């Protein structure tokens, strides 16, 4: 059936809560209001205030108390209201959530999901459009995933909750209200796999989150120029699953990595390095990066210039092929 990503996440959360009484939702305004994006709408009414907790306004405490709940055997799913609000919780995420399993030599588990609506393109004020996923992807002990469409959102949130490792779940808020087909019956792809979302011959375009749709749009536009672009949705950012990427680049000879986060030391840098390691003799051009610029997120009237868009992506494809 067709539904928005918000609804798909909501139904995924509902199923996870029905299946496991240890699953709890916590966060600012997630209860009575249903979250500022309504992802948790109706869940407190159906599962009660004990399992859907409106938390005081303190991100470190949201994650820190979730650590204690995980110690007790719960599976907390916490919502950080906006990407730029996660930093007060950064210490708890990096120093505790990521390290407790290791510190205890495997005796303590942190089966926690940290949901973060991320990315720009919605005309928001400062701190509401950021892409901090790289900072979590480079932290050993955390897993980081991002859904790109409603079907994946519905299934990936359930898979993340079922994971015994902590998962940072990046939700592309720009795509929250777009609808897509959700097959609630078919067994999903594993959480830790990337996927070719559009097969093509001429160049490989790699993206995740909101940029997957932008890249698909770019591929459709490129058809007019007779170009056949392959688009890969990474889905999992840590661990990275570059098997399909390597297979693709060995065929196409060109790789273009697209993300909203800043370029320097971004995920694109790691992906370019890995492609170089694995596809050195197949590459016909250096790996191209189409990213946000190395600046704090700009005022929203400038974000259309800041965010990778169709023109910049196609320009990168052209540069690669002309190399």
């Amino acid at each position: 059936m067709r539904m928005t990503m918000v609804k798909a996440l909501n139904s995924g959360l509902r199923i996870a809560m029905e299946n496991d009484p240890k699953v709890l939702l916590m966060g600012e305004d997630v209860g009575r209001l249903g979250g500022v994006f309504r992802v948790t709408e109706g869940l407190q009414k159906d599962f009660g205030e004990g399992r859907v907790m409106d938390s005081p306004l303190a991100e470190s405490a949201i994650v820190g108390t979730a650590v204690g709940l995980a110690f007790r055997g719960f599976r907390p799913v916490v919502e950080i209201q906006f990407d730029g609000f996660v930093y007060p919780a950064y210490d708890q995420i990096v120093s505790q959530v990521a390290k407790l399993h290791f510190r205890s030599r495997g005796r303590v588990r942190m089966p926690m999901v940290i949901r973060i609506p991320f990315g720009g393109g919605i005309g928001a004020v400062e701190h509401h459009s950021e892409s901090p996923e790289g900072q979590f992807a480079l932290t050993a002990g955390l897993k980081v995933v991002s859904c790109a469409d409603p079907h994946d959102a519905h299934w990936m949130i359930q898979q993340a909750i079922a994971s015994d490792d902590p998962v940072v779940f990046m939700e592309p808020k720009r795509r929250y209200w777009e609808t897509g087909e959700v097959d609630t019956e078919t067994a999903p792809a594993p959480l830790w796999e990337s996927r070719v979302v559009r097969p093509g011959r001429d160049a490989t375009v790699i993206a995740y989150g909101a940029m997957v749709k932008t890249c698909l749009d770019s591929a459709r536009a490129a058809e007019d120029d007779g170009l056949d672009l392959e688009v890969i949705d990474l889905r999992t950012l840590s661990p990275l699953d570059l098997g399909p990427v390597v297979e693709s680049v060995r065929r196409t000879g060109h790789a273009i990595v697209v993300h909203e986060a800043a370029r320097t030391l971004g995920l694109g840098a790691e992906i370019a390095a890995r492609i170089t390691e694995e596809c050195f003799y197949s590459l016909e051009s250096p790996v191209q990066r189409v990213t946000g610029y190395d600046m704090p997120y700009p005022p929203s009237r400038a974000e259309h210039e800041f965010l990778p868009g169709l023109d910049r992506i196609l320009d990168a494809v052209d540069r690669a092929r002309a190399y």
Partner: protein
Amino acid sequence: MNQVNPAAHEVPFVQLLTPDGQRVTDAEHSFDGDRAAIEGLYRDLVMTRRVDVEAFALQRHGELGLWPPALGQEAAQVGSARALKAHDYAFPTYRDHGVAWARGVDPSLLLGVYRGTDLGGWDPADHQLALPNIIIGAQTLHATGYAMGLTLEGLVGTGDSERDSAVIAYFGDGATSEGDVSEALDWAAVHQAPVVFFCENNHYAISLPAANQSHVPIVQRAAGFGLPGVRVDGNDVLACHAVTQRALQRARDGQGPTLIEAVTYRMGAHTTSDDPSRYREAAEVAEWKAKDPIDRVRLLLEAEGTTPEFFADLSAEADALGVHLRQACQNMPEPDLAELFDHVFVESTVENQQQQAEYVAWRASIEGSVSA
């Protein structure tokens, strides 16, 4: 300059045993144990101190890289931790060796963190005791979350003493400046979580005196968050036990959290790398030595007829513990980096496995070719 007024921190505290070994009464708190119970606490104090003395010596002999002494804080740690039931849960700091002792942890397991062989030491589930946290104050939130979990599971206020449970969070005077501690106090109060916040005010956060850390006595912060605050003589094991027992019972009964400020003194350095003579006077240390937490219990027990054999036996037991610690320390297995890869995740990743294999292969390739 800071307008620091240490006198403002001199507010009354609960005391049941004076430094010269006299029992005194308090309107709201009492220690109800018999002489045998006090002997038990005395044993805990003596053994905790021996752990500290031995570990300090092991550091000076180069067997440990570092050691944070609990010297002087034994009563606060032992008195509070002995008020816990087996099914209660504790979240300690890196200095709470007496808490680990009271929770039944083999004290040699405390040494691994400081020898560099481990990052923890025990299974928290075995002792209902989390691993010591080095990040200041972070564990107060964990304790609050754990306590919220107890409430969710219906383990609070049922009237069944075998069932009703509580949590204790340990932290120091320095930690009270951390945002996490304020957040924990606030959340615990809002959720009426069954948690006791036990602040060991040992007067120094490394070099910074407590009066520079908080403009008001720490105990007074409780009122602002809406929970009861109790100040206790942190060098009085009977008072620490009584005050904590009462607070824990309130928590188990569903009456919410309590903040306890135990006024004690860090007789040693912050760690073995520290030199406290740079920031405090010898006279101040001498003043606190006269308030030693162990001496006063011995005076009491001697006056109440504890036999010389008890003290002699305990001394021998402490000596045996010293031997055990020295041997265990030197026999600790070295950490194996190859094995540590196994503990990054529950479900290992391909990247993790590849790097593990890469390391193992590299190690095998140079075996015998370079000196360790």
